[in-house]
């Protein structure tokens, strides 16, 4: 359980000298949230104060007032005068830049934290961390000779080996190219599943967060806008200005039910229907969270025939969200029944012209069309 209540004003010299603080620069950060999730994401655009919050959790930045309580242990409490020093907090930190010690070998980097926190808790053994992250071949190399992806693997291993009760990750993929990103993301999923460590993950990427996080803290301009389950936060229409103005979509929790070896397809079931997606290597029954972008969802008033689209799901229009302009968003509740409750909602982005032609109104039955190949394997988050 993580309980955070922090307040920090920025009155640095930099802000003093700049006559008026620059556009987009924060005056302060105020954050209050709690979560028992395995992976909690701090999500918001750059400059929204996410990094300041994790730096305060780690003890690297001093808050004006507030509390940090992790699993019942108070690390900071301004009222009781508690401020546990950074090195005694038991909080691992993976930085965006990796920040390996350049004068040490990979092995020495990995052992840096391990040597300093002997016996505190069982932790994950050295060999297991090394094989989990696939860094055996790197052990003898010197840190500056590693590539970006390799550095980040070692940085994750180094933090894990210090046996943290909490692992903070501040945009760990931001400095990597796309290929390395999905590779490291898979590793973080394995760390989550195999190392039994709570993770606080900072990101401005909706793909990363919807794939990894159980809970999301949504931040904007130094304040917490909302905190809750990932699905709930990303599917809440009132939060859409913060969660996906440009990349609107819906999250669906599903389960792999069938593999089709002949056509390389996998079928996922959720309450409301089934989805066919390009084949993924996962066990039958594995839970997966799929993000369906609003622009990939087509609507039809009758069941179309002779069509390449694989996923045709019955549903009903739940609401039409019209903000003016050429595009409108239609929320559709999946499932044939008329019941107001249950069933997943999908978001579809269509042109206003189409809306008028189809005369869509709330409650009307529609067919939702999603191309099987619209699913991006990289945006699927698997959990065990």
């Amino acid at each position: 359980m993580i309980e955070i209540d922090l307040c920090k004003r920025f009155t640095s010299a930099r802000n003093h000298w700049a006559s008026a603080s620059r556009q987009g620069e924060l005056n302060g950060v105020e954050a209050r949230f709690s979560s028992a999730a395995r992976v909690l994401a701090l999500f918001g655009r750059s400059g929204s104060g996410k990094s300041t919050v994790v730096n305060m959790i780690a003890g690297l930045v001093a808050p004006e007032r507030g509390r940090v309580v992790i699993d019942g242990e108070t690390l900071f409490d301004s009222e009781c005068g508690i401020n546990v020093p950074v090195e005694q907090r038991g909080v691992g930190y993976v930085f965006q830049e990796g920040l390996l010690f350049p004068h040490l070998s990979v092995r020495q980097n990995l052992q840096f934290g391990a040597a300093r926190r002997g016996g505190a808790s069982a932790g994950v053994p050295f060999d297991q961390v090394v094989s989990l992250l696939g860094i055996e071949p790197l052990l003898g190399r010197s840190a500056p000779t590693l590539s970006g992806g390799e550095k980040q693997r070692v940085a994750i291993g180094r933090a894990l080996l210090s046996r943290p009760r909490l692992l903070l990750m501040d945009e760990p993929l931001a400095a990597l190219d796309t290929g390395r990103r999905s590779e490291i993301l898979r590793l973080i999923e394995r760390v989550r599943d195999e190392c039994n460590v709570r993770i606080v993950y900072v990101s401005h990427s909706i793909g990363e967060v919807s794939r990894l996080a159980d809970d999301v803290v949504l931040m904007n301009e130094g304040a917490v806008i909302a905190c809750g389950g990932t699905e709930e936060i990303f599917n809440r229409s009132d939060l859409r200005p913060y969660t996906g103005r440009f990349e609107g979509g819906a999250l669906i929790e599903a389960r792999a039910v069938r593999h089709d070896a002949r056509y390389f397809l996998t079928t996922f079931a959720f309450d409301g229907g089934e989805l066919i997606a390009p084949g993924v290597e996962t066990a039958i029954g594995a839970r997966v969270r799929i993000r369906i972008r609003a622009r990939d969802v087509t609507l039809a008033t009758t069941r179309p025939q002779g069509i390449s689209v694989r996923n045709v799901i019955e549903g009903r229009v739940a609401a039409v969200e019209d903000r003016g302009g050429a595009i409108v968003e239609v929320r559709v509740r999946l499932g044939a029944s008329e019941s107001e409750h249950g069933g997943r909602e999908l978001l579809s982005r269509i042109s206003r012209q189409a809306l008028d032609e189809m005369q869509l109104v709330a409650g009307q039955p529609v067919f939702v069309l999603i191309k099987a190949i619209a699913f991006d394997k990289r945006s699927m988050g698997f959990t065990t």
Partner: protein
Amino acid sequence: MLSKEEIEIIALSLKVAFASVVLSAPIALACALLLARTTFPGKTLFDAIVHLPLVLPPVVIGYFLLVVFGKQGAGGAWLHDWFGVSFAFRWTGAALAAAVMGFPLMVRAMRLSLEAVPPKLEWAARTLGASRLRTFLSVTLPLALPGVAVGVLLAFARSLGEFGATITFVSNIPGETQTLPLAIYSLTQSPSGDAAILRLCAVSVLLSLAALAGSEWINRRARRRALGADEGAR
């Protein structure tokens, strides 16, 4: 080739220079750390005071040392009573004068190299369980070491050449405070010293060149390590 007296002069100069850097290095490192990593009220003034010996006439520094650390000076009397250390007209005084004069050079080099260590690396070390002191010893200092060594070498070379503050503070006593430059100065006052002057000047040049070459070698090695690292990353 060199006479017995000349060898003694060179040995004394090396002893004085060595003692001066041993005395000043820890203090210079602490000052460099303060200047590189902290902000406090009066930091600019502190910085100016550290740099004073670089711009003041050495005679002024020497006179100041004489007033404070001489036999009658408050600092000198206190050190003599409590530690039995006296500076007046002793080689230790020459070392103190050399240390003060070389101090700004040392601090500057150390400060630059400390500032080049990213503070976030220190953050990383702290989150891995290292205390402030351990972080300094295991991360900051090793990374700043080339600059620290260069600072010590430069101050060493500077100490070998110290003249004004030394002669004002501890005078020019053969066998006790007469270092290389002072000996050369004395020889210029005597009519038959030309050959000896040339020999001592040659030694002086050689020692200074050696110190400079040493610092250059350290710099090159550090740079090559950094460059090699960059190439490896590509």
